[in-house]
Each structure stands twice: as structure tokens, then as C-alpha cells.
């Protein structure tokens, strides 16, 4: 089992003729993802690794129905691309593009909420459910993915794309497989953060434990700890918090308003303290993730 998408999920790629998209389209197809079509306005009739290219999402879906879209277009075009996908009934959107203006992200997330659709990213490498599918660039070519990922009971959600693969690799080299591994995206506001994903892992019968990769800044870790304390989430959660040295550096200054919204939060010290209060296990060193995970399997 996997969360978000499975072997039946049909996928289109918006911006399929772009340099990065051409590469990850091949990697996705090689890995077994059901990529059924691509969209680049004005390039109808071309093919990318055997995948037909259309001018619009509507045209693509008419010939090849799909449930999910991976979007890799220039930042200024991302909002339009997401709205186009949502407007045509796509209900899982993975936004690979980086440097998307925050206002645009908020606008398409608002539209996604209205349509009950899910967005991963922006600024994500994507997700992998080992030996089922991968969406986006995550893990790279199929031979690399096969070395780092294997199926199993651990769900991974990470604020760093590279560390998604690194955690999977750590587990795999220690004989522990993964259910679904998600890079949530590096932006301050993303479509699916830890708070959104933990309930999905909890509902998934195959996922026995979730591993989170956390970084300084933002308050999502603190909010997750509050949620765990309030709602009795049964799924064991293991967190690794990177960047502890950042606490000791002259930090980024917040404006008054940011301070009010986020309180005195955002430091790794504060996140770790909140996790411990909530009973979320914190891995002191990166390798400790293995030992702690084994306790729950």
C-alpha cells in the first residue's frame, strides 16, 4: 500500500518538454509510473519518451484520463498550470517548480481546497512509493532509486528533497523498507505539510511508523506536536531535526507580525522540546533513526 497514489494512478506531466521534465519523465516511466500524457502549449503532436504531448490539459485528458499531474513549468506560469489541472478534475498535483511567488501558491491552494484536491510542493522533488511509482524527480534514475528505496512499513516526510532519499537509503541499507516517501517542498507554505500527511500515514494499514526530517524555521513541527498532544495520534513518529547550530547564530529577524503569528518559535531547540513533550521520538544523531525505527517494527 501507498498513500496519495498507487499503481492504478494515471499521471500527466505539465511542462513535459522542459529540460528537467524530459529527464524525470523517463525516470518515472522506467520506474513503472503510468505516465499517460504530457502538456506543453504549442507543442501538440510531439512525443517525449513515447509520451504524447498536447496543448492543453483538457485535450490530454480527453484521450488519456488521469488522476494526477506533475507540474514543472517556469515560476510565473505555475499558478495557471495548477488551476488548469484542478479545473479539469485532477485531484493530485505535484508542483516541482521552484521560486513560485508565495501569493500564487496561496491562490492555487485556495482553489485546491475548494475542489478537495491535494497539492504536494511547490519546490518539491516529489514522492516515491517503492516499486509502485514515483512522481517527480525524487531519487533520480531507476537504478539509483532501486539502490536507495525498498518497499516496507516506514513512511517518510522530509523538508529536504535530498534527505528524503538519504533517509530511505539509511533504512534500506539496514534492511528496513518504506511505504511512501515524500519531499514536502522547501517553501514556507506548501500544499501538504507534516500536519496534512501524518493522518494519511496513520490511515494507511501498511505504514507502521513515520520518520520526519525537520529544519530550523517555521512552526509546522510545533503545530504537529500540539496536534499529537490533542488528538492522540496512534502512529509512532520519529523526528530528526537538522541545523541545530543555526540556533546559535545571529538569526533571521522576524517582523512584529511574524512574531505574533509564530510566537517565539522556529528554533531547533524549541522544536525538539515540543516533540519530546508530545512523545514524538527525536533521533539525536542521524543513524539513531534506524535503532528507534526498529523499536516499532
Amino acid at each position: 500500500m501507498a498513500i496519495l497514489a498507487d499503481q492504478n494512478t494515471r499521471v500527466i506531466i505539465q511542462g513535459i518538454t522542459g529540460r528537467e521534465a524530459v529527464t524525470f519523465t523517463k525516470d518515472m516511466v522506467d520506474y513503472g509510473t503510468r505516465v499517460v500524457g504530457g502538456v506543453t502549449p504549442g507543442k501538440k503532436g510531439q512525443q517525449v519518451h513515447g509520451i504524447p504531448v498536447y496543448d492543453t490539459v483538457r485535450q490530454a485528458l480527453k484521450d488519456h484520463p488521469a488522476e494526477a499531474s506533475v507540474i514543472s513549468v517556469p515560476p510565473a506560469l505555475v499558478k495557471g498550470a495548477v488551476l488548469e489541472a484542478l479545473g479539469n478534475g485532477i485531484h493530485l498535483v505535484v508542483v516541482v517548480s521552484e521560486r513560485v511567488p508565495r501569493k500564487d501558491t496561496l491562490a492555487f491552494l485556495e482553489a485546491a481546497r475548494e475542489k478537495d484536491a491535494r497539492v504536494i510542493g511547490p519546490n518539491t522533488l516529489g514522492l516515491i512509493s517503492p516499486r509502485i511509482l514515483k512522481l517527480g524527480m525524487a531519487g533520480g534514475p531507476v537504478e539509483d532509486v532501486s539502490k536507495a528505496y525498498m518497499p516496507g512499513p516506514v513512511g517518510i516526510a522530509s523538508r529536504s528533497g535530498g534527505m528524503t532519499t538519504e533517509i530511505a537509503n539509511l533504512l534500506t541499507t539496514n534492511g528496513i523498507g518504506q511505504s511512501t516517501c515524500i519531499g514536502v517542498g522547501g517553501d514556507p507554505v506548501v500544499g501538504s505539510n507534516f500536519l496534512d500527511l501524518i493522518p494519511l500515514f496513520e490511515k494507511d494499514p501498511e505504514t507502521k511508523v513515520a520518520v520526519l526530517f525537520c529544519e530550523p524555521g517555521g512552526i509546522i513541527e510545533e503545530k504537529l506536536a500540539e496536534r499529537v498532544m490533542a488528538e492522540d495520534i496512534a502512529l509512532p513518529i520519529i523526528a530528526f531535526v537538522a541545523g541545530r547550530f543555526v540556533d546559535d547564530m545571529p538569526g533571521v529577524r522576524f517582523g512584529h507580525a511574524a512574531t505574533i503569528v509564530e510566537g517565539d518559535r522556529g528554533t531547533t531547540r524549541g522544536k525538539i522540546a515540543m516533540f519530546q513533550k508530545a512523545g514524538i521520538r527525536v533521533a539525536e544523531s542521524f543513524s539513531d533513526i534506524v535503532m528507534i525505527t526498529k523499536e516499532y517494527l
Partner: protein
Amino acid sequence: MRLLEYESKEILSKYQIPTPAATLISKGGPLDIKGPVMLKSQIPVGGRGKSGGILEASTNDDAKTHIEYLLSTPLKGYKATQILIEEKMQVKQEFFMAVTYDTVIKAPVAIFSREGGVDIETLAVREPGKVWQEPFSVRSKLPQYRAREIISETGVTGGHLLGLAAILSKLADIFLDYDATLAEINPLALIEDGRLVALDCHLEIDDDAAFRHKELVQLGEDQSRFEASRQVTEFERKAAEIDKIDHRGVAGRMIEFDGNMGLIIGGGGASLTAFDAVRAHGGAPANYCEIGGNPSVQKVAELTKLILSKPNVQKIAVIMNVVSNTRVDLVARGIIKGILEAGKKPSETVAVFRIPGAWEKEGFKILTQYGVTYCDRTVSIDAAARIAVENAN
């Protein structure tokens, strides 16, 4: 990017939000003070009032002395090149209003308090009921009736409710129109004659939206707006130059530290992890950096040479997460080239090389040729850091 107070206020004026009568002067500018004025240092940082960046004057002589002081004294890491001279207002009451993003509920949020001023954060903690915040829609914005709903929750009624709501609604427009991540007026003052006037304003613009605001990009590139007294170090400046050698990959975010362990680490999350791990095992990093995106051999070589040019650095630890885009062999080549060009022996200089992933076989072959010990993917990032610290001692 944070706009200066006067730049923010120019935008308020475009939206008909009243600000005090003001002039902006730089060093040696002519003065014509008639009555009490506030002299405000234009630096991109909060807490100016408390740290002496805002002074009062009533005569040309006073003003001249104060301005000379403000232009020559660094404050919170910045030195002003411009001073805003504003008419001093007779304030009856101060309010606070702001618009920012709530990253958890994923919506813009409008905030209002009846008690503005410098201690707004402590008020929010002490009496959260006095600071009211509500999310609103990016697409339908914050109409005045919504602004009234928010403001009236704090108990404000009477004639000023309409005026305050109009300003909060306009502030939300500015926030959205300018792609701000923060738009704050604090304090918004009710003055003796009954007018509402924005005494200070803070706008932060989303760097990722800069392409929609060319005039703000130009502003950001203008080095004459203020001086940053914490200059980047010579080492950091050289690293930034190396990153510009070509467009292949990133060798960036270099930060200099005092330690003796040179670090070539990447990408973002792995760099944070590796740096922590080196410290946890008792190592003292000489630098932080983030490489990734498949940097060229030359970039890595130059970076290696730069780090080795620090007099106390004898060893370099090379640690990245499992890579799929960056090529292990190219990084290995760069490291070896840099060490040789620095006149050192690769086998004695590399404390650890731990980059598994794309083209690792080729990379490991090169490292073996030069007698450099390396780790494969079965050695975790923190185990690699421990090995590096042990090898350095």
C-alpha cells in the same frame, strides 16, 4: 527584501494612507526645521526607537548634530545613509495592524490591536484577546466589511471604526499588490486633530515575486540605500565569486567559522545534518557551505583551494546525501584537483569522502588512485562525520 521606512511610506501614500509630512536627507543636505521633528535613521531593521535610531529635534542646530550622529553610528549591524525628517505628531492613541501569511492554515492573515507601539509581541503573549487575527482569501481580498469585523472584535467602535477598517483593507491590498510577505503599520496613530496617521511602516517583499516588481528589484540592488556594517568576510566574498565561474551547479551559502575542519558539504538538508554531526563529534568546522546541482570540476577545485588557503585548515571533510543529479566522479575530480593545486597530498588532506549515488563507481576509482579513503552508502552522514573528526586528530 525589506523596504526602508520611507520607501514603504511612499507606497502607503499611493494608497491614500496618511503619513506625517516628511523630507528625506542624506549627508550634508540642507536643513530647514520649523518646530519639533522626528529624525529617523533609514535602516532595514526593527527596534530602531529603543536602540537610539530615532531622535527628536526642534532647531536646525539640534537636528544637524543628531543627523551627524545617526549617519556615523552603526545600529544593529547597519549604518544609515539617509535620514527621514518627519513632523512630530501629538498622539492620542496608538493602534497596530499587519497583514502576513499564516503558513499553517495557508492563507493571508490580517491582524489588528487597539494597543500599538513597541511592545506588541509581549501584548500578544500576555493578552492574546487584545490582538485579533483572521485569515482571508487571496482571491476575494479583504473588503472593508471584513476589516470592520476584525477590528470590532477588539472592542473598537465609534467614528474611528470606519477609518481604521478602510486603512486595514488598503493595507491588505498593498500586501497582495506588492507581493509582500509582511505589511505592518505600527503604530497607526490617532492624533490630536482626530486624523489617523501611519507613523511607521514595514514592508517585506517576496524575493520570488521580484520579477513582477522591476522597480523594487532596482531598489534592492542599490547599494547606497544604507551600509551593512557586518560585511561579508573576504573568504565568503571569494566563495561567492567561485560560484559565479559558470552556471553548472551551486557551490554556495558559504559561511566562515573559526574551526580547522574544512567542509565541502551539500545539499541543503544534508549540509545542516553534516555540520551538526561534525560538531557533535567534537570537530570544529572552518566553514559551512551547500554544494549541489552537479557543480563543475573547476568550481569544486576552486572551492577546495579556497578552504585550504585558510592557515589553520589541514583537513577537508567531503559529505553529501545520496546524490542523483550531482555526479560523484566530478566532485571527486574537483576535490583532488584543488588539493594538488594547493600543493598538498589528497591522501593526507581528505578527512573523509562520503558521497554515494550517481557515477559513484567512477568517483571511487579516482579516489582510490590517489589513496583517498572513501565511504559508500552504508556509512551514514553522521558516521562519516565521526570518521572525519577521528582522522583529523
